[in-house]
């Protein structure tokens, strides 16, 4: 098998807050990572595990205390003048991004990033329209003031503002915070579609293990400033006990399957969605469903 190309790498990345004061704290501790192109990555970990700090290194908002961040093999801090380009290539959507909307119209707000990139008007136009469609904003909304939109629409407009830069990596910090279940699933599906269409890498920071399980190919797990693991999603969920001991909650259904497995039932190890569980139970029933012991 051909090894997939990596787009972003970190080498011994370390970041320490308030160095030299009593509040000194290492938020990211010697992290080594290789993130592939064209991949849907989930990022999970407790509040304070260092995941948000790590993400802010990927587009050069924070400078490592030691270690390096490589984008396409180049150290992003090698030439400070290129840092702005790095931010266009690695898009970062913060939590509650709707609080950054500022333009008179939604259109102008989405165009802010592309404009800063120095794109032509025609190109900006195509990008605004394309992005709006991908994220589910109707064209008539684009001429409205962003402050006149509903909560869900504001969130979409803000995300579109970063997507329109067509970054090679798009990082979203809790894009669904505060949305109801319907809005949540809807937005996640649109983000997945965006990823497939643009063949870029999307990193989804989330507290919801259910979402991480249902929408990602790979999972990056941070624990106490260290990288716990970066692996295929099923492989990560196979480590149920370790995840639980870190205080991360596995999806409810994965917990049920784990308990049944411990009781000796012959169920596969990597079940973490409801559909997988249904299929596993059905096949076990068909086999005569017995306990293994």
């Amino acid at each position, binding site marked *: 098998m051909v090894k997939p190309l990596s787009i972003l790498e970190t080498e011994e990345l370390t970041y320490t807050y*308030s160095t030299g004061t009593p509040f000194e704290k290492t938020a990211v501790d010697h992290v080594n990572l290789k993130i592939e192109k064209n991949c849907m990555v989930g990022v999970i970990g407790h509040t304070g595990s260092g995941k948000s700090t790590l993400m*802010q290194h990927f*587009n050069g*908002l924070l400078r490592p205390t030691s270690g390096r961040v490589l984008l396409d093999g180049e150290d992003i801090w090698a030439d400070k003048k290129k840092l*702005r380009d790095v*931010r*266009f290539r690695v*898009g*970062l*959507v*913060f939590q509650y*991004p709707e*609080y*950054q*909307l*500022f333009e008179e119209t939604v259109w102008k707000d989405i165009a*802010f*990033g592309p404009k*800063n*990139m120095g794109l032509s008007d025609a190109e900006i136009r195509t990008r605004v329209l394309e992005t709006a469609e991908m994220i589910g904003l109707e064209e008539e909304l684009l001429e409205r003031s962003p*402050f006149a939109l509903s909560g869900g629409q504001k969130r979409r407009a803000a995300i579109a*503002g*970063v997507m329109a*830069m067509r970054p090679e990596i798009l990082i979203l910090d809790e894009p669904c915070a505060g949305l109801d279940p319907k809005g949540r699933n809807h937005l996640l599906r649109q983000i997945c579609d965006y990823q497939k269409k643009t063949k870029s890498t999307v990193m989804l920071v989330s507290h919801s293990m259910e979402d991480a399980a249902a929408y990602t190919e790979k999972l990056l797990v941070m624990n106490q400033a260290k990288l716990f693991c970066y692996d295929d999603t099923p492989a990560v969920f196979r480590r149920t006990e370790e995840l639980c001991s870190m205080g991360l909650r596995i999806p409810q259904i994965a917990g049920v399957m784990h308990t049944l497995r411990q009781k000796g039932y012959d169920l596969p190890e990597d079940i973490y969605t409801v559909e997988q569980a249904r299929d596993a139970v059905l096949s076990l029933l068909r086999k005569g469903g017995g306990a293994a012991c």
Partner: protein
Amino acid sequence: MLKDITLGQYFPIDSVLHRMDPRFKIIETMLFIVLLFMGSSFWILALGAVFVLLARQLSNIPMKMIWKSVKPILHILAVTAVLNLLFIDDGDVLFQWKLLKVTEGGITTSLFMMIRIVLLIIGSSLLTYTTSPILLTDAIESLLSPLKRVKFPVHEMAMMMSIALRFIPTLLEETDKIMSAQKARGATLDNGKLTERAKALIPILIPLFVSAFRRAEELATAMECRCYRGGEGRTRLRTLKAAPRDYIGFAVCLLFLAAAAVLNILL
């Protein structure tokens, strides 16, 4: 980062001065300023210096912190000293170069002014080092309360001050976040011409204002839900109470003032 900025300069340790009633401390600071401006004799400044040293002793504030309070005004001090030196024409000329001349009077005046300003700064810093912003607000509200009779909105002022104190750190943190978010969209904040820089502030200021108004609205509702209806009939958890040490402190302060007055007459 912006949120690392500490608000006010309260230095949270325990000392006699910390425990004193903030109302007395405010009045005493004002009396101290009056003392400094009572005359033009160095003896008055010496008296002021003794007072400040005494207060420092009671406050346990490290000398390093005192120096820190004076440091930011050093260049202003230098400029005023030079101006006084050059433009006061009084007494013997000690040094002359073309139109510029330095006189004896110039030297004494600039020295006098410098010491006076330094004492003033240290004295008022001792007040803010030893009194938390919230206590200061309470004290100001209490001291201004007689003005309620002439319909001056004392309670409202104090409430506004304390809400501002509460929200400044929150809004600073928010500014930090908005700045990062706009930088991530390629906004440049730290270079370009002045007009460009002013323009670059728009993407920061608008979201900040929008958010501040939203917060204000939500806070207002939350306050109403907790039965807020202005200062009328309101009680307080913490009431300011004067202790014997406050009266002693005040007496000492008056003694200094009286001494200064006597000096002023004698000299």
